[in-house]
């Protein structure tokens, strides 16, 4: 019967739309794929065990690694977490649980503005506040700069996941005669814990690759850092200084560093996905 079949022009239109959508999706994925392949091709050769364990060699000498930079990055991230996580999470708790409509609007606006501030500005701010005052570049300064970047990020994601927790749980807890703050900590935050953790991980992944704020706070170090009040090496910093150098060997190591950095961030994102799936199943 004529009515049961698609008219042929509608079929063509559908196919065309599907194809356009597919091409657009490819366009989105293409840059990531290109970056990955390029990094692999240039850097895979230089990634070796010594890359992870040896300090940079002096200028002109071949070989060496980025052990101090990799470790330094982790140290900086630890400090950043110390600075950024409490403020961010508690800020998110305020927004979700305590804030009034007016104060929340203001806070969210400020957080969104801060999220858009170029990261080098944070470096400058911390330079003025900490580096100049203590008259030295330090890991603390670098960690603080990264922490500042993390605060508005964590605040927003924490707020979001807390708002996802159904009101029924808060009501049930309060109806039992449990005080407000205990309700928030032991019921609401506990329920949203995975979400809060993924928010923190995402923020860490974001700042792991920041170079500009570290330029004049952590400053970089060709040796191991023994005192957090001293300058410290970081992977992005090392990549930067090797990349602008005239030495081929250093160029190759820069590629390797970039590859390692991207793989680290990639792994964190996968971890986040895994955790997120479980969290959704639990809360719903």
């Amino acid at each position, binding site marked *: 019967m004529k009515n049961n079949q698609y008219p042929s022009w509608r079929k063509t239109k559908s196919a065309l739309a599907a194809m356009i959508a597919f091409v657009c999706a490819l366009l989105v994925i293409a840059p990531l794929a290109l970056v990955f392949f390029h990094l692999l091709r240039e850097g895979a050769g230089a990634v070796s065990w010594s890359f992870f364990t040896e300090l940079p060699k002096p200028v002109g000498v071949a070989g060496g690694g980025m052990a101090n930079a990799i470790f330094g990055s982790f140290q900086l991230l630890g400090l950043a977490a110390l600075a950024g996580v409490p403020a961010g999470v508690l800020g998110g708790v305020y927004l979700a649980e305590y804030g009034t409509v007016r104060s929340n609007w203001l806070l969210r606006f400020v957080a969104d503005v801060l999220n858009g501030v170029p990261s080098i500005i944070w470096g400058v701010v911390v330079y003025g506040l900490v580096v100049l005052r203590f008259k030295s570049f330090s890991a603390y300064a670098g960690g603080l700069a990264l922490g500042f970047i993390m605060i508005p990020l964590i605040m927003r994601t924490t707020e979001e996941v807390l708002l996802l927790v159904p009101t029924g749980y808060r009501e049930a807890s309060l109806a*039992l005669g449990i005080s407000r703050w205990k309700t928030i900590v032991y019921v609401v935050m506990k329920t949203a814990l995975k979400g809060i953790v993924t928010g923190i991980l995402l923020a860490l992944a974001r700042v792991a690759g920041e170079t500009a704020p570290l330029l004049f706070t952590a400053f970089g170090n060709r040796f191991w850092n023994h005192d957090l009040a001293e300058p410290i090496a970081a992977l992005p910093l090392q990549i930067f200084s090797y990349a602008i150098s005239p030495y081929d060997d250093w160029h190759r190591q820069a590629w390797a560093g970039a590859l390692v950095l991207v793989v680290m961030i990639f792994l964190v994102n996968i971890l986040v996905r895994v955790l997120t799936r479980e969290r959704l199943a639990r809360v719903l």
Partner: protein
Amino acid sequence: MENAVTIEPPMITPASAPQQQVASDSEPDAAPERAPAFEVERLSIFYGEKKAIDGVALTVPSKMITAIIGPSGCGKSTLLRSLNRMHELVPNTRVEGKVLFGGEDIYAPDVDPVVIRRRIGMVFQKSNPFPTMSIADNVLVGLKLNGVRDRAFLRERLEQSLRMAALWDEVKNDLHKPGVSLSGGQQQRLCIARAIAVEPEVLLMDEPASALDPIATAKIEELIHELSANYTVVIVTHNMQQAGRCSDYTAFLYLGQLIEFGSTTKIFSNPTERRTEDYITGRFG
């Protein structure tokens, strides 16, 4: 038209004349000497400018089941929640009047709502056991988070609460399993166990069975009946047959006002107010 509740000695008359009978108004077995659980005095509740409850005056009898019925939007949930100050979770509320619980106004300025809510528990329409906790932890959360540490006491209270909620036999071997792994009816009974574990004096129930199938509903209704031996129960329901089955007293609310309050039998067989009659016979609402 009132039936005379008089008891006269039977007249000594010839067998052909009929004797005067006692006309009784079927009141449930209320002990009039027991102090009421709540005395609501001219209570008005405002959400911003809107008046949700308008001058309600009510006496909730102790250790009885009182049902609050009325069409949607009449304020029954608001009234229920005002009995343990849960309506204050909505911002911008204002209260006029008093709610006397055990003789004292729960809205007095020096009264801590947290303490009130330990004495007046609440069960909600949608069962909400905490998802991150096991069955045992769910039941005991009210006690644990309020500082009770004695493990023997906790264990005993756990069993007692689950037994009273008619859930012990079904879960006694699975106490470590997550609270959300139970069926809908069981979850609701778990929430009831959780509420009674803190040993309140009153249980407020906001349409506790409306999300459940008929068998689970029947179990909840039976449970409510058993609970009324130890607790005052106030239940909001939009199901009038449920109000008729479950409660001893019924209050009919309409547009925030209390239209009629009386024994359930009277309300459902011969209400005084026209509007009550029209609502329960399904002529409006």
